[in-house]
């Protein structure tokens, strides 16, 4: 039962990846939609970022949660360094410093 549901979930997931690439003719999309699609990264990734910071185990965090500090450090470091590794590590380490040292 679990196996068949995994395979089913896999097929559905594959269709989410494949449908727009292989099945839908891009000419069907109008110019206005294409212009809006340029915002997809900015419109999608905050839905992963915000809950990843502000929600822990289904509940809102406190305002002094170390994740907020880590995120602010990561945003500042990322903005000025333009470096992905520096962004991730600065966020993680500043988060760990608060958890383990303070």
């Amino acid at each position, binding site marked *: 039962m*679990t196996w*068949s*549901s*995994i395979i*089913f*979930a*896999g097929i*559905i*997931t*594959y269709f*989410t*990846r*494949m*449908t*727009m*690439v*292989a099945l839908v003719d*891009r000419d069907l999309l109008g110019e*206005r939609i*294409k212009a*809006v*699609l*340029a*915002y*997809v*990264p*900015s*419109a*999608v*990734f*905050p*839905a*992963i*970022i*915000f*809950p*990843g*910071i*502000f*929600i822990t185990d289904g509940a*809102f965090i406190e305002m002094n949660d170390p*994740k907020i500090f*880590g*995120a602010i450090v*990561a*945003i500042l470091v*990322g*903005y000025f360094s*333009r*470096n*992905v*590794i520096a*962004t*991730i*590590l600065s*966020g*993680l380490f500043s*988060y*760990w410093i608060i*958890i383990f040292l303070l």
Partner: protein
Amino acid sequence: MFTKKQLLIKGLLSVAPHMFSVIPFGIVCGAIGIELGFSPILVYAMSIIIFGGASQIVFLQLLSGGASTLIAVTSVGVINSRHLLYGAVLSEYLEKLSFIKKLLISYLVVDQGFAESNKFFQKNKNEPYLHYHLLGSGGTLWIFWQLSTLAGIILGSFVPEELGLKFAVPLTFIAIVVQDLKKLDHVIVMITCGLSSLLFFDAPFKSYIIISPLIALFVAALVLRLKK
């Protein structure tokens, strides 16, 4: 003009820094599956069959929590429906590929690979072999996802929960969008999406992950209209 090999390597290098987040998250993902009492083969098979981090965790958590398989499968579908948006963006650059190649490369469309390859595509629209960049980015993510979930399955409970490794996930996406904070229209779209995701977090089937991008894209359309 770049050769196929150069594009493949560029794709690989573009996602390499994200491994600092992909590997910890993969380990957590594998470890959670074992912790919840699922068989190692089953937990690992998901990395090949589903190949979508967050949805794999949610699937196992729902099943172990006693939810029906219908609910678990639906949730995976809803969480991964964001790929439809990635596909719509990428289709412009993959248009010329044969149908078979489109079917094959689609399997490798994932968040970070989409994000980095899309950035490259926007600057190099006229390259003939653009899909090799996606092959490089998606392929690299695939390999490291397999290895890291496998490591998590083997390490299992040795991964200390206090490390909060899941926090690497929002950080990797901050790195992707942070330069767009320079553009007011993008900031508006990002904040709309972020606040919507918190507002709709408890909506059924984790649907906040597709509801909030759709709201944000609607706002993007309004912004575009105002800019004219």
